[in-house]
C-alpha cells in the first residue's frame, strides 16, 4: 500500500507486533522473549506510557519456521501494528525483512544474528527498516577467540557446533577466523543438531584429538548436556561458548561441579552491578520465577530501544521512528551500552563469564 501514514497517530495506543517462536523447536527462546517484551511493556506503561499513549502488544506465533514467520508478519500487519519486534531466529527474521522494507515498518529482531538480516546480500545495501539487538556473530566470535588465545593461552581448539542453527555456525565461522589469525589451530570440528541428547560419540572423537579448549557455541540446553557428558568422560579442558549459554538451566543440566573451567561470552552479566541489569534480573525473577536468559534480555532491550526511539522521535510515525532508531547511541540496555552502526547492528561491549558453584561470575569485559 502506498500510504504509509501511521494509523497509530490518531489512536491512543501504540501497537507493537511481536513475531515470536512460541511453538516449535525454538519455543523455549520465543517464550523467554515474550516474557522479556511483556516485562518491558509493563514497565513502560506503568511509567505512564509513551507520548501519553499506552503500548499494546499483539503476539503472533511463527512455529520456529520461516514460512510461518512470514505468515505471522502479515498477520501483524493486518492487525495494523506500528512496529515489529521479532523474529528471534535468523531464518525467521530473514523471511520477514523484505516485507518490513516493503511496508516501511520498523522491525527489530532481538536475537537474529545472521549478517544478511540487516544487509541485503545481493545488493549490499542496508535494509532501511530492519534493526537487531543482538551482537552479530563477528564480534562475539572474535571476542571469544581473543579470550581463548590470550587469556586461556590455548593453541589447539576443538569446535563443537550446532549444525541446525545459523547462530552457532556464525559464531563458529568468526571464531575460527580470528583464532586462526592468532596462530591457533582447530584440531577437530564436530557438529550436533538441536534436540540431540547424546553427544558421547563426537566427544570421544574430540577427546582423541586432545585439544586445549573446546568451543561450543550453542544453546544452553544442548550445551548443558555436552558439558556434563564431556566431564563424565574425563575431559577436563576448559569449555567455552557464546551468549546462547546464558540461562540458569545450564548449571542445572550440566551440574554445578561440571561447570568448572567453563567460560562464555555474553551481553551482560546478571551480577553486573549496573542498575539496569539488577532491576531487570530481580524484576524478571519476581515475575516469572526464574532468572532471565539471553533471549529474554535482548527481547527486553529491543522493546526498550524501540521505546527510546519513539521518545526521541516524539512521534509514532514509522519513518521518523526509523530515523530515530538509526541515531540511537550509548543506550543503556541490559545487554550493554548500545549504539547502532551504519549497518543497523548494535555496537556494544561483551563480557566473558565463568561459573562458581553453578553461579555465573564476571571474568572480563571486551570492548568492541
Amino acid at each position, binding site marked *: 500500500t502506498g500510504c504509509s501514514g501511521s494509523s497509530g497517530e490518531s489512536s491512543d495506543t501504540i501497537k507493537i507486533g511481536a513475531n515470536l517462536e512460541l511453538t516449535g523447536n525454538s519455543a*523455549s527462546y520465543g517464550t523467554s522473549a515474550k516474557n522479556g517484551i511483556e516485562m518491558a511493556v509493563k514497565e513502560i506503561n506503568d511509567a505512564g506510557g509513551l507520548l501519553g499513549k499506552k503500548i499494546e502488544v499483539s503476539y503472533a506465533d511463527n512455529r520456529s519456521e520461516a514460512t510461518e514467520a512470514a505468515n505471522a508478519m502479515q498477520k501483524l500487519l493486518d492487525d495494523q501494528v506500528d512496529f515489529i519486534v521479532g523474529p528471534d531466529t535468523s531464518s525467521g527474521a530473514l523471511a520477514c525483512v523484505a516485507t518490513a522494507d516493503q511496508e516501511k515498518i520498523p522491525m527489530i529482531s532481538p536475537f537474529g544474528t545472521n549478517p544478511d538480516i540487516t544487509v541485503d546480500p545481493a545488493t549490499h545495501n542496508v535494509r532501511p527498516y530492519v534493526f537487531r539487538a543482538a551482537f552479530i556473530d563477528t564480534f562475539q566470535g572474535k571476542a571469544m577467540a581473543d579470550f581463548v588465545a590470550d587469556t586461556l593461552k590455548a593453541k589447539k581448539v576443538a569446535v563443537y557446533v550446532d*549444525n541446525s542453527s545459523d547462530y552457532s555456525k556464525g559464531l563458529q565461522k568468526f571464531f575460527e577466523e580470528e583464532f586462526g589469525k592468532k596462530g591457533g589451530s582447530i584440531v577437530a570440528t*564436530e557438529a550436533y543438531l538441536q534436540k540431540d*541428547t547424546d553427544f*558421547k560419540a563426537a566427544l570421544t*572423537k574430540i577427546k582423541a584429538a586432545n585439544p586445549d579448549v573446546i568451543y561450543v557455541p550453542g544453546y544452553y540446553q544442548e550445551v*548443558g548436556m555436552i558439558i556434563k557428558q564431556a566431564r563424565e*568422560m574425563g575431559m577436563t579442558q576448559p569449555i567455552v561458548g557464546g551468549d546462547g549459554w546464558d540461562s540458569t538451566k545450564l548449571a*542445572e*543440566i550440566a551440574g554445578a561441579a561440571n561447570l568448572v573451567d567453563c567460560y562464555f561470552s555474553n551481553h551482560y552479566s546478571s551480577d553486573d552491578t549496573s542498575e539496569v541489569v539488577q532491576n531487570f534480573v530481580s524484576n524478571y525473577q519476581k515475575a516469572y520465577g526464574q532468572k532471565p536468559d539471553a533471549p529474554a534480555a535482548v527481547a527486553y532491550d529491543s522493546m526498550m530501544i524501540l521505546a527510546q526511539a519513539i521518545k526521541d522521535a516524539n512521534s509514532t510515525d514509522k519513518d521518523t521512528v526509523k530515523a530515530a532508531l538509526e541515531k540511537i547511541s550509548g543506550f543503556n540496555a541490559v545487554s550493554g551500552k548500545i549504539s547502532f552502526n551504519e549497518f543497523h547492528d548494535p555496537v556494544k561491549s561483551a563480557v566473558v563469564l565463568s561459573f562458581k558453584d553453578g553461579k555465573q561470575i564476571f571474568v572480563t569485559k571486551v570492548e568492541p
Partner: protein
Amino acid sequence: MEGTLWLQFVQQLINGISLGSIYALIALGYTMVYGIMKLINFAHGDIYMIGSYVGFFAITAMGLPFVPAILAAMVMTGILGMVVERLAYKPLRHSPKIAILTTAIGVSLFLEYTTMLALSPQPRTFPHVLDNSVYHIGGLVISFQQIVIFLISVVLMLILTYVVNYTKMGKAMRAVSYDPDAAQLMGINVDKTISFTFCIGSSLAGAAGVLVGIYYNSIEPLMGIMPGMKAFVAAVLGGIGIIPGAMTGGIILGVVEAMVSGFISSTFRDAAAFAILIIILLIKPTGLFGKNEREKV
C-alpha cells in the same frame, strides 16, 4: 596410534550400545503396539515425554525415590495410553490405517502443546536420584546409568517376548492383530486386549521417559519427537512388530550413529542412520527379523 584407534573404536561401541539401548527402550513399546494394531502410534514419543514429566514431578514434588517414581510414571502413562486409544483410535478401528495415523499425529501434537502450555517450554532438570558414578577402565569410560539402561532394556525385551509368544494374553494379542473378528469368535475380548496392549506399550514408554530423563538430566515438551522418530526407525530396522527386532534395531542404530560420528563425521550422523535403514530395507524389505512373507495367491 593403532592402540588409541582401537580404544576409540571400543569406546564408540560402548557409546553406541548405550545410545541404542535407549532407542530400544522406546522402540519396544512402539513395536508392541504396532505388532498388535498395525498402527504407527506417532504419539508414542510424546507418551514417553509425559512419562518423564510424571517421573519428574513424582521425584521433585512428591519426593519419591527412583523406583516408586518410575512405577508412578508407568502407571500414569499406561492409563494415558489406554485413554488415548479409547478416545482417539478405537472409533477408527475399521477405518483406513492412514486415518488412524493422521489422528495419531493429532494426538501427538495435542500432547506436546498441552504440556507446553501447562508446563512451559523451558527444559527442566531431574534431581539426583540414581547413582551416576562413572567407571574409567583402561581408558574406556562407562557409567552406571548406561549399564542400568542397557540391562533394563534387555530384561524388558525378554519379558515382552515371553508375554507375547507364550502367555494366553500374548496369544490373544497376536490373534487380534491378524483378524479381530475371528479373534472375537474365539472368545477374545478385542477391546480389552487392545487396551492392554496400549497400556503395556505406553507404560514402557513411561519407564523409558524417566530413565532417559535421569540419564540426560533434561526434559522438555518436545523431547519425544526425535527419539520417537529414531525408535520408530529402530523398530522398522529390526522388523516392525517383532520384539527382539526392536532391540536389535535400536542397538544397530545407536552403534551406526556412534561410529559415523566417531570415524566419519558427526554432521552426517542422522543421514547415515537413515541411509542404513534404507539399505537394510532394500536388502530385507521387512526389516532384519521380518519374515519375508509373500501374500499367498
